[in-house]
């Protein structure tokens, strides 16, 4: 872990993720204005008073960017936790129990994986109503099958290993083996899936917001991009420079931060990467 953090790639990813977390945590202290407050005239250019200018109704863009870190992070964390928990439970259960349970679970996973994610997300979010809680549930529940498949294949190979067989041979119950051997063994993989999952959830949430499927009362980056882009003739003005660009960059940096962190951690955490020795 320490060795991994020493690599510049991982360090930069970790730094971005940390920055995002700090901004989200201290949003009230950092942001000069309330993000919903009409802080000045519409379409102010960036100035000392409004670092990134104001939007179409005179809200401070910088403050919105800062406050936007909160829903972005909480939703991505929530969706990733949900996907990881369900995926690990199904994957472990499926891999260990085998037989009919495994067969049925994997058929369900197959069907989910065959569906293009975004159209399904759009349909479900439109039907259920795009509140923040709903979006966390929807994104989490659509992403778990990928986790399940990874964890299952890991569990299957673990089941054949000597130490697991030995524990079973000495009379260790299923629960004991899972808690004592399997959870620690798949732990690193799960951490990895979780980190990468945050990046994907951020991206999906922003994509849905861009399509108009987000909580319209929230202050979020995706919604800012959406509002800017539906503004007629945006690109023929210079407003995009401080209205669209910062929000898009915030999303990009957030996604890249967690993704790079995941990529950097992979050699350490993914069991497929361990040398046969």
């Amino acid at each position, binding site marked *: 872990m320490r060795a991994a953090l020493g690599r510049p790639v991982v360090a930069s990813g970790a730094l971005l993720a940390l920055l995002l977390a700090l901004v989200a945590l201290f949003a009230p202290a950092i942001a000069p204005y309330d993000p919903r407050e009409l802080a000045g005239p519409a379409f102010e250019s960036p100035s000392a008073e409004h670092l990134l200018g104001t939007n179409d109704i005179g809200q401070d863009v910088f403050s919105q960017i800062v406050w936007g870190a909160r829903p972005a992070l909480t939703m991505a964390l929530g969706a990733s936790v949900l996907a990881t928990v369900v995926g690990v439970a199904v994957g472990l259960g499926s891999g260990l129990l085998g037989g009919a349970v495994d067969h049925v679970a994997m058929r369900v996973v197959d069907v989910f994986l065959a569906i293009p994610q975004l159209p399904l997300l759009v349909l479900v979010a439109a039907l259920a109503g795009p509140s923040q809680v709903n979006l966390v549930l929807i994104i989490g529940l659509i992403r778990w099958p990928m986790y399940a498949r990874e964890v299952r294949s890991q569990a299957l190979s673990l089941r054949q290993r000597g130490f697991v067989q030995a524990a079973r041979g000495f009379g260790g119950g299923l629960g004991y083996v899972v808690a004592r051997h399997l959870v620690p063994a798949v732990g690193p993989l799960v951490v990895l899936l979780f980190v990468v999952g945050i990046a994907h959830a951020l991206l999906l949430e922003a994509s849905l917001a861009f399509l108009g499927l987000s909580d319209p009362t929230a202050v979020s980056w995706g919604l800012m991009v959406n509002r800017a882009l539906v503004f007629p003739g945006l690109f023929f003005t210079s407003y995009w420079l401080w209205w669209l660009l910062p929000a898009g960059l915030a999303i990009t940096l957030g996604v890249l931060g967690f993704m790079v962190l995941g990529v950097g951690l992979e050699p350490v955490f993914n069991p497929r990467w361990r040398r*046969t020795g």
Partner: protein
Amino acid sequence: MRQSTTLARPSPSGADGRTVPDPSSPRPPGGLEGELLCAGETAPGPGAARRSPPRLLASYAVTVFALLTLNFFLPRAMPSDPISALIDAESPSYVQSAELRAELERYYDLDRPLVEQYMAYLGGLVQGDLGVSIRYNQPVSELIADRLPWTLLLLTSSMALAAAVGLALGVHSAWRRGQRLDQGLLTFFLALHNLPVFFVASLALLVFSVELGWVPLGGTNTPFRGLDDPLSAGLDIAHHLVLPAVVVAAGTASAYYLIMRSSLVGELGADYLQLGRAKGLRERRLKYRYAGRNSLLVVVTWSAMRLEGLVTASVLVETVFAYQGMGRLMFDAISFRDYPVLQGCFLLLTLIVVSANLLADLLYARLDPRTAA
């Protein structure tokens, strides 16, 4: 950076629960590029690659049936009933009268038992009946039929572009692994693969359409050009297509690049390459005809799997460029809560992806000499 030959590869197990390492598995060799994509982005389609065609077809039939069923039950499983979903408070067609509601329920057969509704739904689908759009008051199948060719055009052209660029650079990069060019390309494509595509599309629109004026601002073709000759009409369509196609292709080109690179890096020490070198074959021939070709098998299967990502990107990109395909149709349907249209688009896009997967699975069985027998 890394040599993948010595890495452990436990169980690339498919859906059928094989646990032995499977040399012909469609999954790419282990490693950062391959695995992370697998974990996060894509996974093998319903059929594991080495089933007999009848079993393969059966497994896909189950998937399609499950999809149709999901499409039927989704609106009915939501907290609000289908009628509220159709005409909820946010929708422009909000109605509150109980009589009208009852009338609507009768009209959509919602007063009948669920099983009957389900059978009627399946029967309708067989005849191509996808319901009626709320906004346009027009059969959904007609709306989709208008848009489908544009989406297919966008998908196929961007896939061809992505494959050409991604594969060529992947071979090139693997051949020089560890060198600066390789590291640069790897970093570039890893970043490109995870950029928010709608943001990239907006910037591309700004730079190439608004500032430089190289391509039109949006749409699929210039309207009212019916009298023009086919050649200039075709050029006009291509002119509108090029920017959206490049943006859609970007993310998928990275996937191709990463797969090709990681799959080839594993081949570099192979005996047949050493032999070729000893025989005095030229590097170019070794690179593309020998090593590149050997890795193509992986790529064929991946092409179909990547279609999922292409579909997602095309929905977003069509929206930015006002490209009149199914993605844009979906976007327009969102603001109008036009659920029948959303469901129809979802169903069709999914069927496209699933049939492409089936095609790849069948093709794979033919291409792999180990399974061709």
